[in-house]
């Protein structure tokens, strides 16, 4: 359909969301439709703005991780990890190898959990109720692991400045092995039930195309960009927490770019689940001995200065800028969140798709609204 044709068509307006949408959080789309076709779609956010950056200026340094993890509640380890890395840069602390290994393990576990939750929303968006239940069942295993290790199922507050809050419990390593052993064959079952199903693949093909040029100009990172052929992985480019060992592995196992559509983004995430399982199974046996948390000064003060550090969260590059005036509280905390850069591209992606595709496309982008709003 040509552009001229679109203008002369009669259009009507409809809201999509903020409730009932498939992004994780209240995302509202102001859609102009022509029949079943989306002519224009404007995302509207702000329903979840909690003023986290402002609140950070009132909290003590020690209490910051418990707030930052609420920025992206589906991969809360990564937020706290980025913050801890930044503050450690300011305090000039070296982290023990054991704490680093534990951090790597929890970060990969959290990535798997977040990606499996993505599969759930994706299956729900395409009406596959049963498959979505299957994914939730398997995410439960990882939640149980986290419950055992950190004491919570979603808001872990586990990574802290100087290491991690508590040491690996007895039996955690065996249980992780069991979980990896359990998840690997389950991926095959997902393939049979959903990912190879022609109804499913056909409705995702050629919908929601995210161009590589858009990824570069808007600096979209994470699985979305990797599915579009813009390989940008902080784990490989500027490794932290011992990701140096897996640099080659991550660079080697890149999925070839085909269409950069919704289906590709789904497959990229399935690939990343496999990658993370692979990394986990190697790392879980390599946890060295040592202390899990460095001793910090009792007054809870952080030396004056600025620091900025990034990690690869489940949705892309998560950065935390920290500015301290040498006191008990932070001068300024700024969060660089991956979903925010997607916001301006969403109209382009949705334009020309059908109403039936909108949930699939939105779910495949894995937008976390809590990250955008902060």
């Amino acid at each position, binding site marked *: 359909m040509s552009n001229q044709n679109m203008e002369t068509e009669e259009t009507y307006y409809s809201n999509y969301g903020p409730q009932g949408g498939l992004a994780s959080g209240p995302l509202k789309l102001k859609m102009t439709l022509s029949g079943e076709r989306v002519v224009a779609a404007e995302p509207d956010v702000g329903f979840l703005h909690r003023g986290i950056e402002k609140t950070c200026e009132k*909290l*003590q340094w*020690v*209490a910051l991780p*418990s*707030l930052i993890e609420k920025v992206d509640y589906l991969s809360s380890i990564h937020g706290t990890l980025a913050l801890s890395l930044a503050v450690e840069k300011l305090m000039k602390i070296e982290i023990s190898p054991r704490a680093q290994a534990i951090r790597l393990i929890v970060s990969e576990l959290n990535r798997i959990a977040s990606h499996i939750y993505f599969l759930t929303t994706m299956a729900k968006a395409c009406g596959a109720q*049963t498959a979505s239940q299957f994914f939730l*069942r398997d995410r*439960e295993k990882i939640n149980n692991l986290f*419950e*055992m*290790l*950190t*004491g*919570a199922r979603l*808001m872990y*507050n586990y990574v802290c400045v100087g290491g991690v*809050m*508590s040491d690996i*419990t007895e039996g955690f390593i065996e249980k992780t092995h069991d979980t990896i052993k359990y998840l690997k064959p389950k991926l095959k*079952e997902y393939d*049979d*039930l*959903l990912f*190879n*199903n*022609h*109804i499913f693949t*056909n409705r995702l093909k050629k919908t929601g195309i995210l161009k590589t040029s858009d990824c570069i100009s808007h600096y979209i990172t994470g699985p979305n960009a990797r599915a579009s052929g813009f390989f940008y992985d902080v784990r490989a480019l500027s490794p932290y927490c011992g990701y140096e060992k897996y640099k080659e592995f991550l660079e080697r196992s890149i999925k070839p770019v085909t269409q950069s559509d919704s289906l590709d983004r789904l497959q990229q995430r399935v690939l990343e689940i496999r990658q993370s399982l692979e990394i986990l199974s190697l790392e879980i046996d390599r946890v060295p001995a040592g202390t899990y948390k460095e001793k910090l000064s009792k007054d809870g003060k952080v030396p004056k200065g600025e620091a900025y550090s990034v990690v690869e969260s489940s949705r892309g590059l998560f950065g935390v800028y920290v500015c301290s005036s040498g006191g008990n509280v932070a001068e300024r905390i700024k969060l660089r969140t991956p979903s925010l850069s997607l916001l301006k591209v969403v109209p382009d992606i949705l334009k020309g798709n059908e109403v039936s595709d909108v949930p699939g496309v939105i779910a495949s982008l894995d937008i976390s609204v809590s990250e955008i709003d902060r």
Partner: protein
Amino acid sequence: MSEYLGFLKAIHLSGKSILKSIKTSVPYFIGLGDQQKEITEEYPDRVSARMPEDLPARFRGILKNDINKCSGCRACVDICPVSCIRIETEPGPEKAKSWVSVFDIDISKCTVCGLCAEACPTGSLTHSNEYEGSVYHQQQQIVSCGKGWATSEMKERWRQEQETKDLQEKERAKAQQSPLGSEFKKLLSDKKE
């Protein structure tokens, strides 16, 4: 021609994949192996739901305070990000340890972050495995662990106890101050010089 062949092939493939999907759900219908096991927990019933005692040791539930160990040092109040703890202390029976008369935790505010339990120097404030915090009135969401305000009789008793203790202390000190002891000390100090 190839177009039609491709069309037929697509139909063949989709039919095959759909049959495969339908086949995948069979073991769940007829309950083969561990596949028929329900993963839903019948929560309020004890049939299958996980109860507090089944939870891992580190589980962070509602806060509890072993008030006899608590010294009222306010470390938890200082560190709490949502300021949900209220402590009021009075001078108690012992000089070193104050009487924690009010120790209120506002469960409706608490984010269960675990920082206070980490900060507690005596280890009295811990997370229990309890997770049921729903109540009928908002006022009930405050968990009180305090010992209560000290009454005047108690204060009087503590004063008397303190006095007797002080007296005993003095007597003991006197008893220790024997003449031999003082000479011995003198000797020591002389030696040092």
